[in-house]
């Protein structure tokens, strides 16, 4: 497929634009609503986003294995992990809230990191990987529900609140949660599911014409 003739539908206003190959630092913006239609992505970009997503997966595992904080009042101590709050909410009958926390703090981040890593790998590798499109779409759907930076903020606010009652000591888990929040924000800059779908479609088109 000739890249000059590629057309892209603006996801901001629905207008259809012809795309052209972009140079470093360039981006194409919709003339009507200002949405960025496409921007230059370094050939190393997919590898970088794959690396960040895989780092996120490892950090997610570590963050779940370590306690976040230790709270003490008059000699009584209690520590918590991410799952502890979810289990407590379940046991107290607030399962809808527990499911919401479980989804936004664990399942959606896991799905997002995993699908972004797979879609990035599908873009970066010279040979096609099955299900690359599906992974990119899953990354797009799970991204808004992956709320690790919000969870990190909630941990800080809760520690401030608990310090009014007793003593709070941070544990290793908070470091991993902080790093996860950073990973999540960096990944949202590096990885665009829309760009990944476009890249995979172009490759499929090129392979189709070559065949």
């Amino acid at each position, binding site marked *: 497929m000739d890249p000059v003739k590629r057309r892209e539908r603006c996801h901001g206003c629905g207008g259809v634009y012809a795309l052209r190959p972009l140079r470093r630092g360039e981006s194409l913006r919709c003339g009507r609503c200002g949405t960025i239609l496409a921007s230059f992505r370094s050939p190393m970009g997919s590898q970088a986003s794959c690396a960040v997503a895989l780092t996120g997966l490892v950090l997610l595992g570590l963050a779940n294995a370590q306690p976040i904080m230790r709270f003490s009042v008059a000699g009584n101590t209690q520590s918590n992990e991410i799952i502890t709050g979810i289990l407590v909410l379940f046991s107290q009958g607030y399962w809808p*809230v527990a499911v919401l926390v479980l989804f936004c703090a664990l399942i959606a981040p896991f799905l997002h990191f995993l699908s972004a890593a797979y879609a990035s790998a599908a873009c970066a590798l010279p040979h096609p990987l099955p299900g690359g499109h599906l992974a990119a779409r899953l990354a797009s759907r799970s991204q808004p529900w992956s709320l690790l930076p919000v969870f990190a903020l909630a941990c800080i606010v809760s520690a401030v609140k608990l310090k009014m009652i007793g003593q709070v000591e941070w544990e290793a888990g908070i470091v991993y949660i902080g790093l996860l929040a950073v990973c999540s924000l960096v990944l949202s800059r590096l990885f665009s599911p829309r760009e990944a779908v476009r890249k995979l479609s172009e490759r499929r088109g090129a392979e189709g014409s070559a065949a």
Partner: protein
Amino acid sequence: MNGPSPAALPGRQHLDLVRSLVVTGFLLYLPANILPVMTITITGEVEPLTVLGGVNELWGSGLPLVALIVLLASFLVPLIKLVCLAWLLALDGTARCRDRRAATLKVLHQIGSWSMVDIFLLSVLAAVGQLGMMASVVPEPGVLFFAAMLLCTLFATDLYRSEWIWLDGQSAVS
């Protein structure tokens, strides 16, 4: 450059669902903020806390910055989201303030999820607040209304497409 035709726009059939979610969100906003979301027990003293009660407590304890963050994320952001969504729906299908509406929707997507901070806060506090009469944190029914209201705003923002703002068959400018 061609503008979208209404029939070709995906998800347009969800407009009624978005309207329903916004109305439900407004209805849930009141109980979510009137009913206590948690009860904190400190050395035998039981204190039910609403969202605003928690903000007030933080402010009174000399933590105005944290109080402001919680006030913004848990009280103002959901309200701003509901009001903005209602405004977008009221102007749907018209050509008025398109640039502002598109910018508003982008902001809603950026800020929307920060209202979840109160739900996560409860989850962390409930996890460490298991020390019986010394210090315990127990969720209250208000949190169910709060979570439902948040879900309404999150789904409504997710379903409302920015393409709908530009509907009328006019062509895009190259």
